[in-house]
Every structure is written in C-alpha cells, then in structure tokens.
C-alpha cells in the first residue's frame, strides 16, 4: 500500500507538469488551429533558461524561474507575430510545418549554445525527505506539484473571470462572432501563444532540477503533450488537465509495477486506448457546434 501511494504521489507530480504542457498546447490548437510542434522545445529552452540563470549565473531559483517565464512570454509573442501570423491565411499544414521547422531550429540552436552533454541544474531546495505517513515527499517535488496546480488554477481563473480571458473563450467558440464583438482576434492569438510558450518554459524550469537537461529533451515531451491533448479531447481544457494527471500516474504505476523500460510507451498506449474507446477524448464531446 505504501509503495502504491508513493507511486501515485510521484505520478501526480509528473502529471501536473504534463497537464501544464497539455493546457498550453490544447488552447493554442483550439484558438489558432495550429498543431504546435515546437511546444517541447519551449519546455527544453525553459529548462536551459533556468540552468543559465540559476546554475551558471547564481540567480536564486524562484527569480530565475520568473525571469525565464517573462522572457518566454515575449519570445512566444515574437514567434506568433513573426512566424505564425503571416501564415494564418495559408492552409493549416503550412503553419504546422513552420512549427516543425522552428522545433528543429531551436534544438539545434540549443546544441550550439549549450553543447549536447546532459547537464544538472542542481537542487534548489534542501534534499531532505519529509515523511507523511507511509510516503516520503521531497521539497522539490512538493514545490513542482503546487506550482503546476497554481498555474493551472491561475490560467483557469484568468479564462473564467477576466475580460480578456472571456474574449479568449469567445474566440475559441466562434472566431467570426468574436471579431464582430470588437475582439481583436489577432491579439487573442498572440496572448494565447505567448502564454502557452511561457507555461511550457515554466514546466521545463520546474522539472529541470529533477532530470538532466539536454538539447533534444523536448522531443519526448512534445510527443507526450500531444498524447495528453488527444486523450483529453482536442481543444478541451479540463480534458487536458485530467489526461495529464492520468498519464503521470499511469507512467509512475507502470514503471513501478511493470517495468520502468515501458515508462515512455505508456503515453502512446494511452492515446491508442482513448482513440479506440472514446475518440473524442476522455471528457470528449463534439466541440464547436454550429
């Protein structure tokens, strides 16, 4: 039982990060109709951002995370304005190809700047175990989970309660009608993309201290983010959160009880199962009626 709980807790922590990756990707897809293949590279760059600021320059971890988040907010806006907006009247696969190109460019850029050897960010929090009943928590893992949940909650509140958040939802549901309300849908695109980029970078910066950081680390994360988005239902925000948490737990239990060699396969098994059983996603229903 104790072992099971431990796997569950570890799974929820990783799952929180998957959920974070998933909500950004799903919202970018829902709003802009773009399948963003560079999402994993934003994650990778976020980890390198923290490596540079925290490990190499000695800036406190939280501040490094914040600075990197702000930088990638701007970075996302530049990518949207410079690459994606000029392509918005092209067929959807053109923008998709552009994001594939961007992901190749970014991972190679990282290769040039930081070289291919995996690096350790180092532990920003004391390495102690806190025993809660039968399970052991470490401060970094608690921090990762709490931060992921707060970001998800914050994003949800932003979409739910603010004027601009509502404009994003309106654009998501009916782009033309939103424009007729006086909503600048280009601004909505830019904010969505820039927010999704930043949140992926934060995810990288959060998980960085636990794993090693290297230029190609984004690829598998991209693939898993897609798994989360598809399993949750394309464009489905709560679906992505649930699928992300579920994937984390499934991976952790699978690695613990079956074989850790299968850890990365579980995401794809999850997509296959969901596509067979519920092709519209776990919380799926047909979107965009009318």
């Amino acid at each position: 039982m104790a072992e099971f709980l431990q796997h569950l807790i570890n799974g929820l922590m990783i799952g929180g990060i998957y959920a974070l990756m998933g909500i950004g990707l799903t919202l970018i897809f829902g709003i802009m109709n773009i399948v963003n293949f560079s999402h994993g590279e934003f994650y990778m760059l976020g980890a390198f951002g923290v490596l540079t600021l925290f490990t190499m320059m000695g800036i406190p971890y939280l501040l490094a995370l914040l600075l990197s988040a702000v930088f990638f907010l701007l970075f996302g806006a530049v990518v949207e304005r410079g690459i994606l907006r000029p392509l918005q009247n092209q067929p959807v696969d053109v923008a998709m190809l552009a994001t594939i190109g961007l992901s190749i460019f970014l991972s190679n850029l990282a290769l040039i700047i930081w070289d291919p050897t995996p690096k350790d960010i180092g532990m920003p929090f004391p390495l102690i175990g806190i025993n809660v009943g039968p399970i052991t928590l470490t401060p970094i893992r608690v921090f990762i989970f709490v931060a992921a949940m707060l970001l998800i909650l914050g994003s949800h509140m932003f979409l739910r309660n603010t004027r601009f958040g509502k404009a994003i939802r309106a654009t998501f549901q009916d782009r033309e009608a939103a424009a007729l309300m006086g909503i600048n849908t280009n601004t909505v695109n830019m904010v969505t993309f820039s927010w999704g980029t930043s949140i992926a970078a934060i995810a990288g910066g959060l998980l960085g201290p636990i794993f090693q950081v290297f230029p190609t680390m984004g690829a598998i994360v991209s693939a898993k983010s897609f798994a989360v988005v598809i399993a949750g239902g394309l464009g489905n925000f709560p679906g992505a959160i649930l699928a992300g948490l579920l994937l984390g737990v499934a991976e952790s239990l699978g690695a613990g009880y079956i074989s850790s060699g299968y850890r990365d396969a579980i995401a794809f098994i999850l997509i296959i199962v969901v596509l067979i059983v519920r092709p519209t996603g776990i919380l799926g229903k047909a979107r965009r009626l009318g």
Partner: protein
Amino acid sequence: MLKLSNVDVFYGKVHALKSISLHIDEGEMVALIGANGAGKSTTLKTISGMLHPFSGEITFCRKRIDGLSPEKIVRQQVVHCPEGRRVFPEMTVKENLEMGAFTRKDKADTLKDMKIVFDLFPILEERNKLPAGSLSGGEQQMLAIGRSMMSSPRLLMFDEPSLGLAPILVERVADAIKELHKRGTTILLVEQNAEMALTMTNRAYVLETGNIALEGQSKDLLKNEHVRMAYLGS
C-alpha cells in the same frame, strides 16, 4: 449616415457584389431583400469589415470605414448581428451579453443597457447563468439581438433574424427590432422573408446576383409586380 458607393466585392474568384451603391440615413429602418446567394450577407460582411471591397468606398458619418478591421468598425458603433445567431454556446447568457459590450468602458451605461435587454427579453434574465448553447433557437436569437444591443449600436445590421424560427417567434423578433428602431437605433435588415422585411421597414433595396435590382419605398415594393412574383409568391 452609411453610404456605399460603387462597392465591388470578390469571394475568391466570384464577383459577389457588382458596383453596388446604397445609403441609409440616421433613424431609418431599411430592408435589403433578395434570394439566397444574391449577396445580402456579403453586403453586411463588407460593411462590418469581415470582407474588404475590391473597389468602391464605404463611409459612416462621412468617415471611410472600408478596409478597417471588424473590431475597429464595432468601435464606430456599426454593429452586425450575424446570420445563424452565432452565440457563444459554452458561455453563459450573461457572459454573451458582456462580450457584446467588449469595446465599451462605460460600466454604468453598460449595466443600464443590460437592464434594457432584460426588460425586452425577460427570458434572458431568467436564464442568465445558463450556457447559451442550452437555449432554444428562438431564445438564442433573442440573445444574439441582445448581445448586439450591448455594443451600443448607432447602426445595427441584422442578417436573417427570422431564419429557422417558428412564426410566433418571428413576430417576437420583429417586434423587438421595431422597438429598437423606436428607441432611436438606425437599422439595416437583411431578410429572405421579404414580406416581413417590407412590412416592417420604410425603404428597401432588392439585391439580385450582386446587383441592386430595385430600390424604393417598402410599401411600393410590396405592390411591385416583379417583387410580388419573385419574393412574395403571388
């Protein structure tokens, strides 16, 4: 107030509007009728900035508005209530109305307008916390009208507000539009239901394959033989 001069619009390669000219004076209620595909919706979309004319000019209160984006045109208080209601299905009735007021900063006046909408359509107040997608077709049309009212329109353009509604609801919608006109909003009404449009309005244009085929007083057009044959079925 609104003036289109020799406006040409292309939909891809299709010449959808062929040098059309029309005008609406402040306080008027004008109908634009025509068959399916005649260019009625295209005309509205061009005025509201969703389409841009290839040539010609559109002015509102003597200012050029062709070429502006939809969100800039809404800010001039030229509001387009689109065909097929197009409410935001997963947002509540109240949120839909708030979206209508997206461009407005005057909180107090906005609240006052929401009250006017609720007075006109009490059902919307009753359901204000429900998602718009759960409303019936007629209620969604009322919401779409209410949402346009929230943009504080000086010119309000309706695209087929009677489409797909039961006769009794068509009447409710017509009454609501008349009420808005009475309160001082200038109205451009696009309808396939020519009889409804011509009995409601003072003046009308008849659009046929991208040309203005006829224009005149609505009561004269109701008696016009061509109009009777083509649009009134008698």
